[in-house]
Protein backbone atom coordinates (compact mmCIF):
# COMPACT_ATOMS: atom_id res chain seq x y z
CA UNK A 1 0.00 0.00 0.00
CA UNK A 2 2.74 2.42 0.96
CA UNK A 3 4.69 1.52 -2.13
CA UNK A 4 1.65 2.26 -4.25
CA UNK A 5 1.12 5.61 -2.56
CA UNK A 6 4.72 6.59 -3.13
CA UNK A 7 4.52 5.57 -6.76
CA UNK A 8 1.45 7.74 -7.18
CA UNK A 9 3.23 10.62 -5.49
CA UNK A 10 6.13 10.33 -7.85
CA UNK A 11 3.79 10.24 -10.79
CA UNK A 12 2.09 13.33 -9.42
CA UNK A 13 5.33 15.26 -9.26
CA UNK A 14 6.36 14.27 -12.75
CA UNK A 15 2.94 15.22 -14.07
CA UNK A 16 3.12 18.62 -12.43
CA UNK A 17 6.52 19.26 -13.92
CA UNK A 18 5.35 18.32 -17.38
CA UNK A 19 2.33 20.58 -17.02
CA UNK A 20 4.35 23.54 -15.81
CA UNK A 21 6.81 23.26 -18.65
CA UNK A 22 4.11 22.60 -21.21
CA UNK A 23 2.06 25.62 -20.23
CA UNK A 24 5.12 27.84 -20.11
CA UNK A 25 6.12 27.15 -23.68
CA UNK A 26 2.66 26.74 -25.12
CA UNK A 27 1.56 30.18 -23.98
CA UNK A 28 4.62 31.81 -25.43
CA UNK A 29 4.13 29.98 -28.70
CA UNK A 30 0.68 31.39 -29.14
CA UNK A 31 1.64 35.03 -29.05
CA UNK A 32 3.52 37.70 -27.23
CA UNK A 33 1.76 39.17 -24.19
CA UNK A 34 2.68 42.68 -25.27
CA UNK A 35 0.26 42.55 -28.19
CA UNK A 36 -2.59 42.05 -25.80
CA UNK A 37 -1.74 44.51 -23.08
CA UNK A 38 -1.20 47.86 -24.70
CA UNK A 39 1.15 47.01 -27.47
CA UNK A 40 -1.06 48.48 -30.12
CA UNK A 41 0.09 51.31 -32.30
CA UNK A 42 3.75 51.06 -31.41
CA UNK A 43 6.72 51.18 -33.70
CA UNK A 44 9.00 48.18 -33.71
CA UNK A 45 11.52 50.02 -31.56
CA UNK A 46 8.91 51.06 -29.01
CA UNK A 47 7.43 47.61 -28.92
CA UNK A 48 10.89 46.24 -28.24
CA UNK A 49 11.22 48.69 -25.35
CA UNK A 50 8.00 47.44 -23.83
CA UNK A 51 8.91 43.82 -24.43
CA UNK A 52 12.20 44.38 -22.65
CA UNK A 53 10.46 46.17 -19.80
CA UNK A 54 8.17 43.19 -19.20
CA UNK A 55 11.14 40.86 -19.26
CA UNK A 56 9.90 39.07 -22.34
CA UNK A 57 12.94 39.80 -24.47
CA UNK A 58 15.16 37.07 -23.15
CA UNK A 59 15.19 33.72 -24.90
CA UNK A 60 12.44 31.35 -23.84
CA UNK A 61 14.89 29.10 -22.12
CA UNK A 62 16.32 31.91 -20.13
CA UNK A 63 12.86 33.05 -19.15
CA UNK A 64 12.05 29.47 -18.21
CA UNK A 65 15.13 29.17 -16.05
CA UNK A 66 14.36 32.47 -14.32
CA UNK A 67 10.82 31.28 -13.76
CA UNK A 68 11.88 27.99 -12.21
CA UNK A 69 14.26 29.73 -9.88
CA UNK A 70 11.57 32.18 -8.79
CA UNK A 71 9.16 29.30 -8.26
CA UNK A 72 11.65 27.61 -6.01
CA UNK A 73 11.64 30.74 -3.86
CA UNK A 74 7.88 30.77 -3.79
CA UNK A 75 7.71 33.83 -6.02
CA UNK A 76 4.97 33.46 -8.57
CA UNK A 77 5.70 36.64 -10.42
CA UNK A 78 3.79 39.78 -11.30
CA UNK A 79 0.74 39.84 -13.50
CA UNK A 80 1.59 41.49 -16.80
CA UNK A 81 -1.85 42.98 -17.04
CA UNK A 82 -2.53 44.16 -13.51
CA UNK A 83 1.03 44.79 -12.37
CA UNK A 84 0.36 43.19 -9.01
CA UNK A 85 1.80 40.03 -7.53
CA UNK A 86 0.03 36.98 -8.84
CA UNK A 87 -0.37 35.67 -5.32
CA UNK A 88 -2.37 38.77 -4.34
CA UNK A 89 -4.72 38.32 -7.25
CA UNK A 90 -5.19 34.65 -6.55
CA UNK A 91 -5.87 35.23 -2.87
CA UNK A 92 -8.55 37.73 -3.76
CA UNK A 93 -10.23 35.33 -6.09
CA UNK A 94 -9.91 31.99 -4.40
CA UNK A 95 -12.51 32.72 -1.75
CA UNK A 96 -15.38 33.30 -4.16
CA UNK A 97 -14.35 30.29 -6.23
CA UNK A 98 -14.29 28.02 -3.22
CA UNK A 99 -17.66 29.35 -2.14
CA UNK A 100 -19.15 28.48 -5.50
CA UNK A 101 -17.47 25.11 -5.48
CA UNK A 102 -18.68 24.24 -2.01
CA UNK A 103 -22.20 25.34 -2.84
CA UNK A 104 -22.21 23.34 -6.05
CA UNK A 105 -20.89 20.19 -4.38
CA UNK A 106 -23.42 20.39 -1.56
CA UNK A 107 -26.31 21.02 -3.91
CA UNK A 108 -25.21 18.25 -6.23
CA UNK A 109 -24.94 15.72 -3.44
CA UNK A 110 -28.18 16.82 -1.84
CA UNK A 111 -30.16 16.53 -5.05
CA UNK A 112 -28.45 13.85 -7.12
CA UNK A 113 -28.09 11.05 -4.61
CA UNK A 114 -31.73 10.91 -3.51
CA UNK A 115 -32.93 11.56 -7.06
CA UNK A 116 -30.76 8.84 -8.51
CA UNK A 117 -31.75 6.39 -5.82
CA UNK A 118 -35.43 7.07 -6.31
CA UNK A 119 -35.03 6.86 -10.07
CA UNK A 120 -33.47 3.44 -9.65
CA UNK A 121 -36.05 2.18 -7.20
CA UNK A 122 -38.98 3.45 -9.25
CA UNK A 123 -37.40 2.71 -12.58
CA UNK A 124 -40.39 0.89 -13.94
CA UNK A 125 -42.87 3.65 -13.21
CA UNK A 126 -43.33 7.06 -14.72
CA UNK A 127 -41.87 8.69 -11.60
CA UNK A 128 -38.50 7.21 -12.37
CA UNK A 129 -38.64 8.36 -15.97
CA UNK A 130 -39.72 11.80 -14.92
CA UNK A 131 -36.81 12.20 -12.56
CA UNK A 132 -34.42 11.15 -15.28
CA UNK A 133 -36.16 13.47 -17.72
CA UNK A 134 -35.68 16.50 -15.48
CA UNK A 135 -32.15 15.49 -14.63
CA UNK A 136 -31.43 15.14 -18.29
CA UNK A 137 -32.22 18.82 -18.82
CA UNK A 138 -29.06 19.58 -16.96
CA UNK A 139 -27.14 17.96 -19.78
CA UNK A 140 -29.05 19.44 -22.61
CA UNK A 141 -28.89 23.11 -21.78
CA UNK A 142 -25.55 24.90 -22.13
CA UNK A 143 -24.88 26.36 -18.70
CA UNK A 144 -24.70 29.94 -19.91
CA UNK A 145 -28.14 29.62 -21.42
CA UNK A 146 -29.43 28.34 -18.11
CA UNK A 147 -27.63 31.15 -16.32
CA UNK A 148 -29.06 33.86 -18.54
CA UNK A 149 -32.52 32.31 -18.36
CA UNK A 150 -32.32 32.25 -14.58
CA UNK A 151 -31.25 35.89 -14.51
CA UNK A 152 -34.02 36.91 -16.84
CA UNK A 153 -36.76 35.09 -14.98
CA UNK A 154 -35.74 35.31 -11.33
CA UNK A 155 -34.00 38.66 -11.45
CA UNK A 156 -35.21 40.65 -14.43
CA UNK A 157 -38.89 39.75 -14.56
CA UNK A 158 -39.59 38.68 -11.01
CA UNK A 159 -36.99 40.75 -9.22
CA UNK A 160 -36.54 38.10 -6.54
CA UNK A 161 -32.79 37.79 -6.66
CA UNK A 162 -29.85 40.13 -7.29
CA UNK A 163 -28.34 39.78 -10.73
CA UNK A 164 -24.66 39.66 -9.93
CA UNK A 165 -21.85 40.12 -7.52
CA UNK A 166 -21.24 38.60 -4.15
CA UNK A 167 -22.53 39.70 -0.82
CA UNK A 168 -25.40 37.78 0.56
CA UNK A 169 -26.91 34.33 0.44
CA UNK A 170 -29.32 35.55 -2.21
CA UNK A 171 -26.35 36.23 -4.50
CA UNK A 172 -25.45 32.57 -4.30
CA UNK A 173 -28.61 30.97 -5.52
CA UNK A 174 -28.47 31.47 -9.26
CA UNK A 175 -24.73 30.92 -9.79
CA UNK A 176 -24.74 27.73 -7.76
CA UNK A 177 -27.82 26.36 -9.51
CA UNK A 178 -26.47 27.24 -12.95
CA UNK A 179 -23.14 25.69 -12.09
CA UNK A 180 -24.54 22.52 -10.58
CA UNK A 181 -27.20 21.66 -13.12
CA UNK A 182 -24.85 19.71 -15.30
CA UNK A 183 -23.23 17.85 -12.43
CA UNK A 184 -26.56 17.04 -10.84
CA UNK A 185 -27.69 15.49 -14.11
CA UNK A 186 -24.50 13.54 -14.41
CA UNK A 187 -24.38 12.31 -10.83
CA UNK A 188 -28.07 11.40 -10.80
CA UNK A 189 -27.43 9.20 -13.76
CA UNK A 190 -24.43 7.57 -12.19
CA UNK A 191 -26.22 7.04 -8.93
CA UNK A 192 -29.14 5.46 -10.72
CA UNK A 193 -26.87 3.15 -12.67
CA UNK A 194 -24.84 2.23 -9.63
CA UNK A 195 -28.00 1.52 -7.64
CA UNK A 196 -29.41 -0.55 -10.50
CA UNK A 197 -26.26 -2.60 -10.54
CA UNK A 198 -26.37 -3.13 -6.83
CA UNK A 199 -30.13 -3.68 -6.55
CA UNK A 200 -29.94 -6.72 -8.80
CA UNK A 201 -27.20 -8.39 -6.86
CA UNK A 202 -27.72 -11.69 -5.19
CA UNK A 203 -26.91 -10.63 -1.66
CA UNK A 204 -29.86 -8.30 -1.69
CA UNK A 205 -32.11 -11.16 -2.61
CA UNK A 206 -30.82 -12.83 0.50
CA UNK A 207 -31.57 -9.77 2.58
CA UNK A 208 -35.09 -9.59 1.21
CA UNK A 209 -35.56 -13.31 1.74
CA UNK A 210 -34.55 -12.77 5.32
CA UNK A 211 -37.57 -10.54 5.58
CA UNK A 212 -35.90 -7.16 5.79
CA UNK A 213 -38.14 -4.25 4.88
CA UNK A 214 -37.45 -2.73 1.47
CA UNK A 215 -36.30 0.73 2.65
CA UNK A 216 -33.79 -0.96 4.94
CA UNK A 217 -32.58 -3.06 2.06
CA UNK A 218 -32.15 0.00 -0.06
CA UNK A 219 -30.45 2.26 2.41
CA UNK A 220 -28.44 -0.07 4.52
CA UNK A 221 -27.19 -2.41 1.88
CA UNK A 222 -27.68 -1.18 -1.62
CA UNK A 223 -26.88 2.48 -1.18
CA UNK A 224 -23.84 1.81 0.91
CA UNK A 225 -22.28 -0.26 -1.79
CA UNK A 226 -23.32 2.04 -4.57
CA UNK A 227 -21.92 4.94 -2.57
CA UNK A 228 -18.34 4.01 -3.30
CA UNK A 229 -18.85 4.46 -7.00
CA UNK A 230 -20.94 7.54 -6.46
CA UNK A 231 -18.37 9.20 -4.25
CA UNK A 232 -15.52 8.48 -6.58
CA UNK A 233 -17.49 10.04 -9.40
CA UNK A 234 -18.25 13.01 -7.19
CA UNK A 235 -14.57 13.35 -6.45
CA UNK A 236 -13.84 13.53 -10.14
CA UNK A 237 -16.61 16.03 -10.60
CA UNK A 238 -15.17 18.25 -7.90
CA UNK A 239 -11.92 18.09 -9.73
CA UNK A 240 -13.67 18.99 -12.95
CA UNK A 241 -15.53 21.82 -11.28
CA UNK A 242 -12.39 23.15 -9.74
CA UNK A 243 -10.82 23.07 -13.13
CA UNK A 244 -12.94 25.02 -15.47
CA UNK A 245 -16.67 25.01 -15.92
CA UNK A 246 -16.92 28.09 -13.76
CA UNK A 247 -15.52 30.64 -16.17
CA UNK A 248 -18.87 30.95 -17.87
CA UNK A 249 -20.78 31.28 -14.61
CA UNK A 250 -18.22 33.65 -13.17
CA UNK A 251 -18.35 35.95 -16.17
CA UNK A 252 -22.12 36.06 -16.35
CA UNK A 253 -22.65 36.68 -12.66
CA UNK A 254 -19.68 39.04 -12.36
CA UNK A 255 -18.32 36.65 -9.77
CA UNK A 256 -14.61 37.21 -9.49
CA UNK A 257 -13.19 33.74 -9.24
CA UNK A 258 -10.29 31.68 -10.45
CA UNK A 259 -12.01 30.39 -13.59
CA UNK A 260 -12.54 33.83 -15.02
CA UNK A 261 -9.02 34.83 -13.98
CA UNK A 262 -7.55 31.91 -15.88
CA UNK A 263 -9.52 32.42 -19.05
CA UNK A 264 -8.81 36.15 -19.17
CA UNK A 265 -5.15 35.41 -18.55
CA UNK A 266 -5.18 32.90 -21.40
CA UNK A 267 -6.99 35.24 -23.78
CA UNK A 268 -4.59 38.08 -22.99
CA UNK A 269 -1.51 35.92 -22.64
CA UNK A 270 -0.88 37.13 -19.09
CA UNK A 271 1.79 34.49 -18.65
CA UNK A 272 2.54 34.66 -14.91
CA UNK A 273 -1.11 34.44 -13.95
CA UNK A 274 -1.80 31.70 -16.45
CA UNK A 275 1.15 29.66 -15.32
CA UNK A 276 0.28 29.99 -11.67
CA UNK A 277 -3.36 29.25 -12.28
CA UNK A 278 -2.68 26.11 -14.21
CA UNK A 279 -0.25 24.90 -11.57
CA UNK A 280 -2.70 25.57 -8.77
CA UNK A 281 -5.62 23.93 -10.50
CA UNK A 282 -3.54 20.97 -11.64
CA UNK A 283 -2.26 20.51 -8.11
CA UNK A 284 -5.75 20.64 -6.69
CA UNK A 285 -7.11 18.21 -9.24
CA UNK A 286 -4.27 15.77 -8.86
CA UNK A 287 -4.52 15.87 -5.10
CA UNK A 288 -8.22 15.21 -5.18
CA UNK A 289 -7.81 12.41 -7.66
CA UNK A 290 -5.04 10.80 -5.71
CA UNK A 291 -7.08 10.98 -2.54
CA UNK A 292 -10.08 9.46 -4.24
CA UNK A 293 -7.91 6.77 -5.71
CA UNK A 294 -6.33 5.89 -2.40
CA UNK A 295 -9.68 5.99 -0.64
CA UNK A 296 -11.17 3.75 -3.27
CA UNK A 297 -8.33 1.36 -2.75
CA UNK A 298 -8.73 1.42 0.98
CA UNK A 299 -12.47 0.81 0.75
CA UNK A 300 -12.54 -1.90 -1.88
CA UNK A 301 -10.43 -4.84 -0.78
CA UNK A 302 -10.27 -6.32 -4.26
CA UNK A 303 -8.53 -3.25 -5.58
CA UNK A 304 -6.24 -3.07 -2.61
CA UNK A 305 -5.16 -6.62 -3.07
CA UNK A 306 -4.67 -6.19 -6.79
CA UNK A 307 -2.33 -3.35 -6.13
CA UNK A 308 -0.06 -4.94 -3.60
Amino acid sequence: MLEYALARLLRMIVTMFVIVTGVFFATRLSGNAVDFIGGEGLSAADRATLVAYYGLDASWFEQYWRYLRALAEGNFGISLLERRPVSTIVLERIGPSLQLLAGAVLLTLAVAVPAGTLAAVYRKSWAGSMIMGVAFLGYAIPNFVLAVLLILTLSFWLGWLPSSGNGSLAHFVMPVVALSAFYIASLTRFTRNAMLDVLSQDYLRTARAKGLAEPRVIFKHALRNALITVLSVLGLQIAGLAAAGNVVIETIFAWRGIGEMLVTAALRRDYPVLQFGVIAVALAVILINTLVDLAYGAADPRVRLARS
Partner: protein
Amino acid sequence: MVHTTLSAPPAAPSLVHRATRLRAGLADVWADMNWILRCTAILGIVLVALALAAPLIAPFDPNAQSLLSRLKPPMGLAGAKDGYLLGTDELGRDILSRCLHGLRLTLGVALLGAVIGLLLGGSLGLLAGIAGGRVDDLIMSLVDIQIAVPFTLVALLTVALLGGDLSVLIAVLGIAYWEQYARITRGEVLRLREMPFIEAARAAGASGWRIAVRHILPNLISPLVVVFTVNISNIVLLESTLSFLGLGLRPPTATLGAMVGMGRDYLPSAPWIVAAPALLILLVTFVIQMLGDFLRDRTDVRLRER
Protein backbone atom coordinates in the same frame (compact mmCIF):
# COMPACT_ATOMS: atom_id res chain seq x y z
CA MET B 1 -9.14 -32.76 -25.92
CA VAL B 2 -11.44 -30.10 -24.70
CA HIS B 3 -11.87 -27.70 -27.54
CA THR B 4 -15.54 -27.02 -27.48
CA THR B 5 -15.10 -23.91 -25.33
CA LEU B 6 -13.43 -22.32 -28.28
CA SER B 7 -15.74 -22.03 -31.20
CA ALA B 8 -14.22 -22.22 -34.62
CA PRO B 9 -14.02 -18.90 -36.43
CA PRO B 10 -17.29 -18.51 -38.31
CA ALA B 11 -17.19 -18.73 -42.08
CA ALA B 12 -17.33 -15.32 -43.80
CA PRO B 13 -21.06 -14.61 -44.13
CA SER B 14 -22.51 -13.61 -47.47
CA LEU B 15 -23.90 -10.13 -48.00
CA VAL B 16 -27.49 -11.32 -48.06
CA HIS B 17 -26.90 -13.27 -44.90
CA ARG B 18 -25.52 -10.18 -43.20
CA ALA B 19 -28.39 -7.96 -44.33
CA THR B 20 -30.95 -10.44 -43.08
CA ARG B 21 -29.21 -10.67 -39.75
CA LEU B 22 -29.10 -6.88 -39.48
CA ARG B 23 -32.76 -6.53 -40.26
CA ALA B 24 -33.63 -9.20 -37.77
CA GLY B 25 -31.42 -7.48 -35.22
CA LEU B 26 -33.06 -4.10 -35.78
CA ALA B 27 -36.54 -5.63 -35.62
CA ASP B 28 -35.48 -7.14 -32.32
CA VAL B 29 -34.41 -3.78 -30.98
CA TRP B 30 -37.61 -2.11 -32.17
CA ALA B 31 -39.72 -4.75 -30.52
CA ASP B 32 -37.98 -4.13 -27.23
CA MET B 33 -38.77 -0.43 -27.21
CA ASN B 34 -41.71 1.10 -25.45
CA TRP B 35 -43.63 3.80 -27.27
CA ILE B 36 -41.58 6.64 -25.88
CA LEU B 37 -38.40 5.09 -27.12
CA ARG B 38 -39.93 4.44 -30.48
CA CYS B 39 -40.90 8.07 -30.84
CA THR B 40 -37.41 9.03 -29.74
CA ALA B 41 -35.89 6.78 -32.37
CA ILE B 42 -38.09 8.31 -35.04
CA LEU B 43 -37.16 11.79 -33.84
CA GLY B 44 -33.53 10.85 -34.08
CA ILE B 45 -33.94 9.66 -37.63
CA VAL B 46 -35.77 12.86 -38.53
CA LEU B 47 -33.00 14.99 -37.06
CA VAL B 48 -30.30 13.10 -38.92
CA ALA B 49 -32.30 13.36 -42.12
CA LEU B 50 -32.73 17.11 -41.64
CA ALA B 51 -29.05 17.49 -41.01
CA LEU B 52 -28.09 15.51 -44.09
CA ALA B 53 -30.59 17.31 -46.31
CA ALA B 54 -29.87 20.79 -44.95
CA PRO B 55 -28.20 22.19 -48.06
CA LEU B 56 -31.16 21.02 -50.12
CA ILE B 57 -34.07 22.07 -47.96
CA ALA B 58 -32.82 25.26 -46.34
CA PRO B 59 -34.87 28.12 -47.83
CA PHE B 60 -31.99 30.60 -47.77
CA ASP B 61 -28.21 30.67 -47.78
CA PRO B 62 -27.43 30.55 -44.05
CA ASN B 63 -24.82 33.27 -44.40
CA ALA B 64 -26.82 35.65 -46.57
CA GLN B 65 -27.30 38.87 -44.64
CA SER B 66 -30.10 41.34 -45.12
CA LEU B 67 -28.92 44.19 -42.98
CA LEU B 68 -32.16 46.10 -43.06
CA SER B 69 -34.17 43.12 -41.86
CA ARG B 70 -32.34 42.36 -38.65
CA LEU B 71 -33.95 40.85 -35.57
CA LYS B 72 -37.28 40.12 -37.25
CA PRO B 73 -39.57 37.77 -35.26
CA PRO B 74 -40.86 34.42 -36.53
CA MET B 75 -43.87 34.22 -38.83
CA GLY B 76 -47.10 34.83 -37.04
CA LEU B 77 -45.74 37.55 -34.78
CA ALA B 78 -46.00 41.23 -35.48
CA GLY B 79 -43.22 42.58 -37.62
CA ALA B 80 -42.30 39.25 -39.16
CA LYS B 81 -40.79 39.16 -42.60
CA ASP B 82 -42.24 36.93 -45.31
CA GLY B 83 -40.42 33.72 -45.98
CA TYR B 84 -38.37 33.85 -42.82
CA LEU B 85 -40.22 31.18 -40.88
CA LEU B 86 -38.26 31.44 -37.69
CA GLY B 87 -37.26 35.06 -38.00
CA THR B 88 -33.92 36.69 -38.61
CA ASP B 89 -30.87 37.09 -36.46
CA GLU B 90 -28.62 40.05 -35.62
CA LEU B 91 -27.37 40.33 -39.22
CA GLY B 92 -30.68 39.58 -40.92
CA ARG B 93 -29.85 35.97 -41.70
CA ASP B 94 -32.61 33.35 -41.82
CA ILE B 95 -32.72 31.47 -38.55
CA LEU B 96 -34.37 28.38 -39.97
CA SER B 97 -31.64 27.95 -42.57
CA ARG B 98 -28.97 28.61 -40.00
CA CYS B 99 -30.52 26.08 -37.67
CA LEU B 100 -30.59 23.40 -40.33
CA HIS B 101 -26.99 23.99 -41.30
CA GLY B 102 -26.08 24.40 -37.67
CA LEU B 103 -27.69 21.06 -36.85
CA ARG B 104 -25.68 19.46 -39.62
CA LEU B 105 -22.48 21.04 -38.37
CA THR B 106 -23.15 20.29 -34.69
CA LEU B 107 -24.02 16.66 -35.35
CA GLY B 108 -21.07 16.25 -37.64
CA VAL B 109 -18.61 17.89 -35.30
CA ALA B 110 -19.92 16.11 -32.21
CA LEU B 111 -20.00 12.72 -33.88
CA LEU B 112 -16.55 13.05 -35.38
CA GLY B 113 -15.17 14.38 -32.14
CA ALA B 114 -16.70 11.55 -30.14
CA VAL B 115 -15.42 8.97 -32.60
CA ILE B 116 -11.93 10.43 -32.44
CA GLY B 117 -12.10 10.32 -28.66
CA LEU B 118 -13.36 6.77 -28.74
CA LEU B 119 -10.67 5.56 -31.10
CA LEU B 120 -7.89 7.46 -29.40
CA GLY B 121 -8.95 6.80 -25.83
CA GLY B 122 -10.15 3.31 -26.48
CA SER B 123 -6.95 2.14 -28.08
CA LEU B 124 -4.79 3.81 -25.47
CA GLY B 125 -6.88 2.31 -22.70
CA LEU B 126 -6.78 -1.10 -24.33
CA LEU B 127 -3.05 -0.83 -24.76
CA ALA B 128 -2.55 0.26 -21.16
CA GLY B 129 -4.67 -2.58 -19.85
CA ILE B 130 -3.15 -5.32 -21.94
CA ALA B 131 0.47 -4.24 -21.98
CA GLY B 132 0.61 -3.13 -18.38
CA GLY B 133 3.87 -2.10 -16.75
CA ARG B 134 5.73 0.89 -18.13
CA VAL B 135 3.31 1.46 -20.97
CA ASP B 136 0.46 1.51 -18.53
CA ASP B 137 2.25 4.02 -16.31
CA LEU B 138 3.01 6.29 -19.22
CA ILE B 139 -0.53 6.28 -20.47
CA MET B 140 -1.92 6.85 -17.01
CA SER B 141 0.41 9.83 -16.60
CA LEU B 142 -1.02 11.25 -19.78
CA VAL B 143 -4.45 10.72 -18.30
CA ASP B 144 -3.40 12.54 -15.15
CA ILE B 145 -2.17 15.48 -17.17
CA GLN B 146 -5.33 15.55 -19.21
CA ILE B 147 -7.49 15.63 -16.10
CA ALA B 148 -5.33 18.11 -14.27
CA VAL B 149 -5.22 20.84 -16.85
CA PRO B 150 -8.52 22.61 -17.39
CA PHE B 151 -9.36 21.63 -20.90
CA THR B 152 -11.10 24.90 -21.62
CA LEU B 153 -7.68 26.54 -21.41
CA VAL B 154 -6.06 24.00 -23.67
CA ALA B 155 -8.87 24.41 -26.18
CA LEU B 156 -8.58 28.17 -25.92
CA LEU B 157 -4.86 28.27 -26.55
CA THR B 158 -5.07 25.74 -29.35
CA VAL B 159 -7.77 27.65 -31.16
CA ALA B 160 -5.88 30.89 -30.58
CA LEU B 161 -2.74 29.33 -31.97
CA LEU B 162 -4.19 27.47 -34.92
CA GLY B 163 -7.24 29.52 -35.77
CA GLY B 164 -10.94 28.73 -35.76
CA ASP B 165 -10.94 26.18 -38.54
CA LEU B 166 -13.40 23.32 -38.64
CA SER B 167 -10.63 20.74 -38.57
CA VAL B 168 -8.95 22.38 -35.59
CA LEU B 169 -12.22 22.50 -33.74
CA ILE B 170 -12.97 18.84 -34.39
CA ALA B 171 -9.48 17.83 -33.35
CA VAL B 172 -9.70 19.84 -30.15
CA LEU B 173 -13.12 18.46 -29.26
CA GLY B 174 -11.92 14.98 -30.14
CA ILE B 175 -9.09 14.97 -27.67
CA ALA B 176 -11.13 16.71 -25.00
CA TYR B 177 -12.46 13.61 -23.39
CA TRP B 178 -10.25 10.75 -24.56
CA GLU B 179 -9.27 9.93 -21.02
CA GLN B 180 -12.81 8.89 -20.16
CA TYR B 181 -12.69 6.21 -22.81
CA ALA B 182 -9.17 5.25 -21.84
CA ARG B 183 -9.97 4.77 -18.19
CA ILE B 184 -13.12 2.79 -18.79
CA THR B 185 -11.42 0.58 -21.33
CA ARG B 186 -8.41 0.03 -19.16
CA GLY B 187 -10.60 -0.68 -16.13
CA GLU B 188 -12.61 -3.25 -18.00
CA VAL B 189 -9.51 -4.90 -19.42
CA LEU B 190 -7.98 -5.16 -15.97
CA ARG B 191 -11.17 -6.66 -14.64
CA LEU B 192 -11.63 -9.11 -17.42
CA ARG B 193 -8.01 -10.13 -17.51
CA GLU B 194 -8.45 -12.07 -14.32
CA MET B 195 -11.57 -13.85 -15.44
CA PRO B 196 -11.59 -17.58 -16.02
CA PHE B 197 -12.70 -17.55 -19.63
CA ILE B 198 -9.74 -15.44 -20.57
CA GLU B 199 -7.45 -17.83 -18.74
CA ALA B 200 -9.00 -20.65 -20.67
CA ALA B 201 -8.53 -18.91 -23.98
CA ARG B 202 -4.93 -18.17 -23.17
CA ALA B 203 -4.37 -21.70 -22.05
CA ALA B 204 -5.78 -22.89 -25.37
CA GLY B 205 -3.18 -20.79 -27.13
CA ALA B 206 -5.14 -17.78 -28.37
CA SER B 207 -2.97 -14.76 -29.09
CA GLY B 208 -3.32 -11.56 -27.07
CA TRP B 209 -4.78 -9.81 -30.08
CA ARG B 210 -7.42 -12.43 -30.62
CA ILE B 211 -8.32 -12.36 -26.95
CA ALA B 212 -8.67 -8.61 -27.14
CA VAL B 213 -10.92 -8.66 -30.14
CA ARG B 214 -13.08 -11.67 -29.50
CA HIS B 215 -13.39 -11.65 -25.76
CA ILE B 216 -12.65 -8.26 -24.34
CA LEU B 217 -14.16 -5.95 -26.93
CA PRO B 218 -17.71 -7.30 -26.73
CA ASN B 219 -17.69 -6.63 -22.99
CA LEU B 220 -16.62 -3.10 -23.57
CA ILE B 221 -19.58 -2.16 -25.73
CA SER B 222 -21.92 -1.47 -22.87
CA PRO B 223 -19.76 0.90 -20.80
CA LEU B 224 -18.38 2.54 -23.93
CA VAL B 225 -21.84 3.20 -25.30
CA VAL B 226 -22.68 5.07 -22.12
CA VAL B 227 -19.52 7.12 -22.30
CA PHE B 228 -20.03 7.75 -25.99
CA THR B 229 -23.53 9.13 -25.53
CA VAL B 230 -22.55 11.29 -22.59
CA ASN B 231 -19.53 12.37 -24.56
CA ILE B 232 -21.50 13.63 -27.52
CA SER B 233 -23.55 15.85 -25.22
CA ASN B 234 -20.39 17.05 -23.51
CA ILE B 235 -18.83 17.94 -26.81
CA VAL B 236 -21.87 19.94 -27.85
CA LEU B 237 -21.65 21.80 -24.54
CA LEU B 238 -17.90 22.32 -24.74
CA GLU B 239 -18.32 23.74 -28.20
CA SER B 240 -20.97 26.13 -26.89
CA THR B 241 -18.64 27.27 -24.14
CA LEU B 242 -15.90 27.94 -26.66
CA SER B 243 -18.20 30.11 -28.72
CA PHE B 244 -19.40 31.85 -25.55
CA LEU B 245 -15.78 32.85 -25.04
CA GLY B 246 -15.58 34.13 -28.59
CA LEU B 247 -13.64 31.16 -29.93
CA GLY B 248 -14.98 28.22 -31.83
CA LEU B 249 -15.78 28.44 -35.50
CA ARG B 250 -15.10 31.70 -37.26
CA PRO B 251 -18.17 33.58 -38.31
CA PRO B 252 -20.24 33.43 -40.38
CA THR B 253 -20.40 29.62 -40.15
CA ALA B 254 -22.16 28.62 -37.00
CA THR B 255 -22.90 25.51 -35.06
CA LEU B 256 -25.99 25.46 -32.86
CA GLY B 257 -23.83 26.21 -29.85
CA ALA B 258 -22.31 29.24 -31.54
CA MET B 259 -25.74 30.56 -32.46
CA VAL B 260 -26.82 30.27 -28.86
CA GLY B 261 -23.65 31.92 -27.64
CA MET B 262 -23.85 34.86 -30.00
CA GLY B 263 -27.56 35.29 -29.52
CA ARG B 264 -27.71 35.36 -25.74
CA ASP B 265 -27.47 39.15 -25.58
CA TYR B 266 -30.76 39.27 -27.39
CA LEU B 267 -32.71 37.04 -25.04
CA PRO B 268 -34.91 39.83 -23.65
CA SER B 269 -35.57 41.47 -26.99
CA ALA B 270 -35.32 38.74 -29.64
CA PRO B 271 -35.48 35.37 -27.87
CA TRP B 272 -36.09 33.37 -31.04
CA ILE B 273 -32.44 33.73 -31.96
CA VAL B 274 -31.52 31.55 -28.98
CA ALA B 275 -34.72 29.53 -28.65
CA ALA B 276 -34.55 27.73 -31.98
CA PRO B 277 -30.97 26.43 -31.78
CA ALA B 278 -31.26 25.75 -28.04
CA LEU B 279 -34.35 23.64 -28.66
CA LEU B 280 -32.49 21.68 -31.31
CA ILE B 281 -29.60 21.08 -28.92
CA LEU B 282 -32.13 19.86 -26.40
CA LEU B 283 -33.71 17.46 -28.87
CA VAL B 284 -30.38 16.10 -30.06
CA THR B 285 -29.18 15.53 -26.53
CA PHE B 286 -32.48 13.96 -25.57
CA VAL B 287 -32.41 11.48 -28.43
CA ILE B 288 -28.80 10.53 -27.80
CA GLN B 289 -29.30 10.05 -24.09
CA MET B 290 -32.49 8.06 -24.36
CA LEU B 291 -31.25 5.77 -27.07
CA GLY B 292 -27.88 5.42 -25.43
CA ASP B 293 -29.41 4.43 -22.11
CA PHE B 294 -31.70 1.99 -23.82
CA LEU B 295 -28.89 0.34 -25.75
CA ARG B 296 -26.81 0.11 -22.65
CA ASP B 297 -29.55 -1.49 -20.64
CA ARG B 298 -30.16 -3.91 -23.46
CA THR B 299 -26.59 -5.01 -23.99
CA ASP B 300 -26.08 -5.36 -20.28
CA VAL B 301 -29.08 -7.60 -19.84
CA ARG B 302 -28.00 -9.66 -22.78
CA LEU B 303 -24.58 -10.07 -21.28
CA ARG B 304 -25.94 -11.21 -18.00
CA GLU B 305 -28.21 -13.73 -19.58
CA ARG B 306 -25.44 -15.32 -21.57
